[in-house]
């Protein structure tokens, strides 16, 4: 077994109103970042787990996202990084 460090990104699904992202975008516009088009505020979760190899580590991270970390109705997730810890 190897210990892996896995990062997952969870973001509000496109098309669903994201008032937090909009509020942050408004603030950035106020600061003068006029080229900014959109902001989406989500969660960044770091998992450390033991697995036989990298693909099974990623597989169990996906299962965690599907069953608890992300809400399948309103959020999307992406496993952004898997590395030996």
């Amino acid at each position, binding site marked *: 077994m190897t210990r892996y460090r896995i990062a997952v990104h969870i973001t509000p699904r496109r098309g669903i109103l994201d*008032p937090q992202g909009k509020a942050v975008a408004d603030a950035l516009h106020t600061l003068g970042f006029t080229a900014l088009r959109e902001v989406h505020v989500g969660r960044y979760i770091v998992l450390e787990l033991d697995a036989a190899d990298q693909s099974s580590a990623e597989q169990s991270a996906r299962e965690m996202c599907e069953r*608890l970390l992300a*809400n399948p*109705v*309103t959020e999307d997730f992406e496993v952004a990084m898997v590395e030996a810890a």
Partner: protein
Amino acid sequence: MKFGIVTFPGSNCDYDAYRAVVDGLGEQAAFLWHKDHDLKQSDVIILPGGFSYGDYLRAGAIARFSPVMQDVIAFANRGGPVLAICNGFQIACEAGLLPGALLRNASLKFVCELVRLRVETSDTLFTNRYDKGATLRIPIAHGDGRYTADEETIDRLEGEGRVVFRYLAGPADTDEWWSPNGSTRAIAGIVNEGGNVLGMMPHPERAVDPLLGSSDGLALFESVLARVSV
């Protein structure tokens, strides 16, 4: 009749629900601890308001996996009546007892006020003592009440008469929808396919006596009492 009221760490409307049942309705109530697998032979389960598990991750996401919820889910799947209020509604959605999800209020503000609700159907276990179209005054108090589901699900809820309550705009003489939290089509409460699980953001248990500012919530409890045989 006995109501079982679940207490999660962070529940804060469990005593209000208890008082509504015992003092308002004159029936029995028992608290059900989140770590137990014991529904204490309750005839109706109430998932009360509050901030179970600190709303960590998402409101209701952790509570859904607590031991007692496995029994509540089995109870609901057998057709047992479940009244899920506010945080209870969020938990019921996370648990898959009800479709959709409750997201952060569109205003990003916690809303706490007495609102007007319209009874969209009196043909449910929970609303048979109201007239269809009746207007109720019931308080809301939540930060995550924006009911969201895909269009197809919402259309289906409407088509099957499962949208039970809708928010109305402030002045008493208007019949317009108004969503204090940005919820889709101003939906305030829905029932599951079997009609035995009601989820609603407003707090009927806080409106059971004129001293509380409204007693319009009492008939909801009376509806359950009228329909559920013990």
